[in-house]
Structure formats: C-alpha cells, structure tokens
C-alpha cells in the first residue's frame, strides 16, 4: 500500500491548511481513502444495532446467539471490497460493510463479529458444514450452487468488465480487444469468457489479480478482466492511474451465502438489504468504498426471495 501514506499525508496537510481538523479517526475501517475528495471523501454510515432480536425458527441464529458472536465468511485480498489489512487485521470494503449492516440488524455489534477468510473454492463447504453463519464475498448466485447453499439477495449486480490504464483510448469495451493483451486469473470464469474467439484477445493468466494489476501498471498487458466490483476496488486503490470501462458483458448477481435450509434467516437478510437500500445506507456504503473508483452508483437489482 505504497500510495496510501502519501495520500493520507496529503489529506492531513489539507486538513491542517483549512483548519477543519475533525478529530482524526472517524470510526470504522482504518482505510483512509486516497486522493479523490481528499478530506471530504464520503464517510461510511454507522449501523444501529437492533435490540431483542428473536429468530427462533433459525438454527443458525440460535447457534450464534449461544456463541455470543456471529461468524462471517469473507474475502481478504480484494481492496475496497473484501480486504484485510495484514498489519492491523482490520477488515474493510463494500462486502464487509454489507455483512456488518446485516449483523447490526441481527443484533450483533461490530465486536461480536468473528471474520473468517474463505477461499472461493471452499465456500460451499464452509457454509454447508456450518463453519460460517453467513458469507459475503463476491459470491455469484447460480442454480448449481443453490443445490448446496442458500442465497439472500442479490445485493449487487456485478458483471465481467475491463480495467484499463487511465490514459487508454483504444479500449472502449469488450468488442475492442482484438490483438490486445488481457490478464485474468488462471482457470477463472472471466478468463474462459475472454478466451472466446469472438473477442480476439491475447490472454495472460496469472495467480492473483494484484499480479494482473501490476502487469497493467507496468504496461505488460492492456487490460484486466473480472467482475466489475473487484476491478472497481483496484481502481479505487489507484484512481489516478486506473479506470473501469463500465460496460459489463456477463451477469454475476452477488448474494449472501447461508445455510440452504434456513429460510427464516434468508428472509431476514433479504428484508435487511431491502430496508437499507431504501433508507440510503446501502448507497452510503457504496460511495465510501467502490464509489471511490470514480464509477458512479447504480441501484442494486431487485431482491429475489424463494
């Protein structure tokens, strides 16, 4: 996180100059947003913790109450989306905030959450074996997965998109990739998509998206492709150098993964998401996380209860 320090320093300098120092740390997610907006960057909302929640029909909730804390599965390597600062162990990002928002509605404070980093490959296992109560981590809802886990949401409509350098002129969308070098993760869905002959792109396949972003910054590749949410996170991390094209060419509705048979909890989370979309909390979360990438807010898709 090289750029973060100068950016923070700049923000502090701005604060000092304008004389509106406001007590430094403002609550959650020790991530000081970089340059855009500087001192008056969008702030994260605070969540009111509900009192006396009773969901006796939900085995997951009963277990969590007994335990005295909620175990939430998340990603740890996606900046501004699902991120864990390795030095402070502080979690931050859009998915993390959605999880906190739901937790507050369930009556759990920030300190009553235990985070578990769950890798993409073992999400179904972690949920069905009850290792996590619910999971928020770029988890695309599909029928194959619905056989194994339950989904609340969708809370965000992602889609494969392209991350390019800010000064890129020739790439305007998926149809302008002929002969361009595009990077993605080995064996991933977006990679399989971009390999289709109609795009005519040359692919570079690496192990981590951060490696791809590195290659993009050093001009080894011309674009990085994966879900736009992940790309927006990298663009928010580096808003002066990177941008997301904003023309998604697949559909990846993200849902909150939870136990397949816990319909009570599923409905509760659906209501929670709906409620906070209406009262503006959801939008505030977006503005303070993925919104920093410069990609403007889009209202989430309608909840699909089942």
């Amino acid at each position: 996180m090289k750029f973060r320090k100068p950016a923070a320093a700049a923000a502090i300098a701005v604060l000092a100059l304008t004389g509106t120092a406001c007590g430094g740390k403002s609550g959650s997610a020790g991530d000081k947003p970089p340059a855009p907006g500087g001192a008056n960057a969008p702030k994260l909302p605070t969540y009111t913790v509900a009192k006396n929640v009773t969901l006796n029909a939900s085995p997951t909730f009963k277990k969590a109450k007994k335990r005295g804390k909620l175990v939430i599965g998340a990603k740890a390597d996606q900046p501004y989306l699902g991120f864990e600062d390795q030095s402070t162990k502080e979690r931050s990002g859009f998915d993390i905030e959605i999880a906190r928002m739901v937790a507050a509605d369930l009556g759990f404070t920030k300190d009553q959450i235990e985070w578990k980093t769950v890798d993409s490959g073992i999400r179904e296992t972690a949920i069905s074996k009850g290792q996590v109560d619910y999971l928020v981590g770029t988890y695309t809802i599909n029928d194959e997965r619905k056989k194994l886990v339950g989904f609340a949401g969708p809370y965000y409509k992602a889609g494969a998109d392209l991350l390019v350098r800010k000064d890129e002129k020739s790439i305007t969308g998926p149809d302008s990739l002929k002969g361009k070098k595009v990077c993605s993760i080995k064996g991933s869905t977006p990679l399989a998509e971009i390999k289709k002959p109609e795009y005519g792109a040359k692919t570079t396949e690496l192990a981590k998206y951060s490696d791809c972003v590195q290659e993009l910054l050093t001009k080894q590749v011309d674009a990085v492709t994966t879900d736009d949410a992940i790309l927006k996170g990298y663009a928010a991390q580096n808003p002066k150098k990177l941008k997301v094209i904003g023309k998604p060419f697949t559909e990846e509705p993200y849902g909150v993964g939870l136990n397949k048979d816990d319909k009570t909890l599923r409905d509760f989370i659906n209501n929670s998401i709906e409620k906070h979309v209406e009262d503006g909390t959801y939008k505030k979360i977006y503005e303070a996380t993925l919104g920093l990438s410069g990609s403007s807010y889009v209202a989430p898709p309608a909840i699909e209860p089942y």
Partner: protein
Amino acid sequence: MNVLLDHFSAFRDGFIGTLSITAVSAVIALVLGVVMAGFRVSPVPPLRFFGTAWVTLLRNTPLTLLFLIATFVVPEILFPGMSPYVLGSLALGFYTSSFVCEAVRSGISTVPIGQAEAARSLGMTFSQTLRTIVLPQATRIVIPPLSSIFIALTKNSAIAGAFSVVELFGWQKSMSDLGYAIVPIFLWVAIGYLVITFAISGIFRLIERRMEVAR
C-alpha cells in the same frame, strides 16, 4: 471419468504444455549445467568463481521467486514483450541447471585423479582431457541422479501454470472452477504427470544399460 471426457482437449493441451516446457527447460538445464560443471573444475579461478556463484545463487532461490523475477522484472528491464513460455522455460532451465551442474561435478570427482594426470602427461589440454577422458567416465555415474533431477523438473513445471504458461496442473484450476469434484480431477492430473515421469525414468534406465561396462 466425466471430467476427462468432457474436457479432453483442454487436458491434452495441458499435457502437451507440460511436456514441452519440461523438454525445453531440460535442454537448457543440461547445456548450462555441463558448462557450469566444467567451469567449477577448471584451472581458471574467475571461471571457478563464476560457476560457484551461479550454483549458489540459483540453487538457494525458491523457484517461485525466480518465476516472479522472470515474469515481472525481466520484461520490464530487459526484453519487453517476451512470451511467458520463453520466460518460464528460462526460469525453470536456469534453476535446474544448478542441480545438473552439481550432479555432473560429483560425477567428475569420482573419476580417479590418475586418469586426468595420465591424460595431461600425454600432452592433452584441459578441454581435451575433460571431453575424451573424464566426462565419458563421469557420465555413467551421473545418469541416475540426472534422472531424479529431470523428474523433479517435470513436477516443478506446475509452477509455470501460475505465470501464464499452459500446462497440466492449470487444467485442475479450470475444472474446479466449473464445479467438478476435486478427487477425480487430481487423479487425472496425477496420472498425466506419472506418464511423463515414468517415461523419463524408462529412458534413463535404457541409457544406463547401454552405457554399462564391466568393471
């Protein structure tokens, strides 16, 4: 079985990829390794130093780190636009060359010093002595350890998959992403590797038999 039948062409591409990067790196490693072994036993101090430095550096660097350097650093500083396949082969070849060098050198050390002295007294130069007297005798001894080195090289080539080279292990990633059960996937990948490594040990056994001499 399904996973193999449904995606056989991808499996085949991966298998051929592993085979080809292994073969290319093996050639690089063999050539460089023998040259470095020559350096290390030569009477010229700077060459000896160079050979020792080469082995020490490459043998003690994790292979993944070498791949990282080859993929992210080399194109930026030296050769922009080099293909990942070439970069990967070089990383793998250089790394393995240090092991080949040490195997060859230990083979050379087993040739009695009297042999080299006799050659010298017949008026042979250092390189003639090495080529016609020492190396042919050393080769026999080097064959078994070389076989192990090349089998290890085959398995190490799996790392290249994370650096944009199409190879067998990468097939597993795509298949897991498509939601196939993990055990059969790994079974097929393992069988793919076994075919290659068995072939290597078979070839080396043949060479060993051909080179046998009565002692």
